[in-house]
């Protein structure tokens, strides 16, 4: 949209990763036409106050687009409750097939969108092209299962998440949680291990699929912009690891992860000059670092 000449405002989040509703309200302008919010954040799992945002936007007659890709199957997603006008969903995040997603488009009040794919006018002209029936059926079945097992999955996953968090916290010092713990899906745990660089820790956690920052940006060397948005120092942003817990994660896997994390963080800290300085009581912010 910016490329087409629209002005966009990007809102900062609070230290816990949540949108400040007053700041959100203040950012609305008489000529605002659309707002887009991530229901559940992909890096830190925080759940935004969607009902409040939806109500505010409806009052101002502003279209509300919701990216619910990370929310579906983890929290109740009800387009009426949050008054979403447009909502994006993806199949592979709910154990469905890759390569299929869905866009909800509200009929009342009607939302008109312009087609991005042109051709035979399928899907009421919104998305031309032959439909991949097997993908659609696969995503539909996955969505059905996700909703059915949401409660039991969440309960079990929360227990595993707490086990992982408590296990790591009791074994490793100087660990920081990124993002609010209350308004958060239990499937995500994002931790910063101070004085250890994230990519080197990923390399050490062989056999466990974790990421530093988001998978989308793993090719870049920049620290996570999400963590920087929380006001984390660059050093802590570089030291972050995202753990994802899913429907098929077991307690044994959690325990193995705790063991591995504790031993590898210890090993990498032995290697870290920053850890040594920390133990000597040197404040890293007081050091004049040589630029490169």
């Amino acid at each position, binding site marked *: 949209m910016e490329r087409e000449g629209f002005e966009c405002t990007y809102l900062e989040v609070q230290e816990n990763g949540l949108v400040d509703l007053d700041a959100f309200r203040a950012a609305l302008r008489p000529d605002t036409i659309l707002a887009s919010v991530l229901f559940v954040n992909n890096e830190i799992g925080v759940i935004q106050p969607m009902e409040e945002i939806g109500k505010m936007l409806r009052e101002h007659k502003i279209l509300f687009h919701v990216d619910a890709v990370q929310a579906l199957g983890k929290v109740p997603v009800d387009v009426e409750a949050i008054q979403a006008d447009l909502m994006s969903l993806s199949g592979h995040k709910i154990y469905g097939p890759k390569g299929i997603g869905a866009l909800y488009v509200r009929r009342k009040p009607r939302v008109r969108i312009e087609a991005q794919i042109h051709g035979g006018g399928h899907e009421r002209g919104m998305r031309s092209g032959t439909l991949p029936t097997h993908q659609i059926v696969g995503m539909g079945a996955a969505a059905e299962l996700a909703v059915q097992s949401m409660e039991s999955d969440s309960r079990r996953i929360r227990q595993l998440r707490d086990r992982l968090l408590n296990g790591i916290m009791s074994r490793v010092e100087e660990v920081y949680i990124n993002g609010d713990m209350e308004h958060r899906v239990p499937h995500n745990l994002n931790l910063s291990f101070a004085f250890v660089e994230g990519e080197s820790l990923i390399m050490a956690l062989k056999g466990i699929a974790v990421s530093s920052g988001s998978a989308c940006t793993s090719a870049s060397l920049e620290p996570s912009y999400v963590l920087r948005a929380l006001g984390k120092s660059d050093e802590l942003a570089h030291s972050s690891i995202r753990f994802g817990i899913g429907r098929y994660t077991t307690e044994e896997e959690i325990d193995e992860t705790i063991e591995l994390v504790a031993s590898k963080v210890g090993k990498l800290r032995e290697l870290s000059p920053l*850890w040594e300085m920390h133990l000597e009581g040197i404040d890293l912010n007081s050091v004049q670092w040589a630029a490169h």
Partner: protein
Amino acid sequence: MAYSEKVIDHYENPRNVGSFAKEEAGVGTGMVGAPACGDVMRLQIKVNEQGIIEDAKFKTYGCGSAIASSSLVTEWVKGKSLDEAMQIKNSQIAEELELPPVKIHCSVLAEDAIKAAIEDYRKKSGAVSAAETH
């Protein structure tokens, strides 16, 4: 990120990890990089009376390639004179470890660390010998 076997070997079995006391005679310390950039290397050399680097140690905060680059240079500088060690080029480090383009900066940092350690040693020993002549 696909790492070469050499990077993985140095990462899993880093050589010469540790520290010398900074004030110890014959020790030069170089620390380069910054936490905010995601890598900090500290390289220390111990120089004997003949001007030969007889020992080296490192500690590095950074990715696998940064750890491997600093581990490798501790091996390379040992047994070299200061002038010989000054000749080590980042391109040689990158070539030896088969670093991918996005990791070349790790080898640059390792070269900088050698130079910084030698400079520190020269400054310290220069100050000592200057003091001795008085």
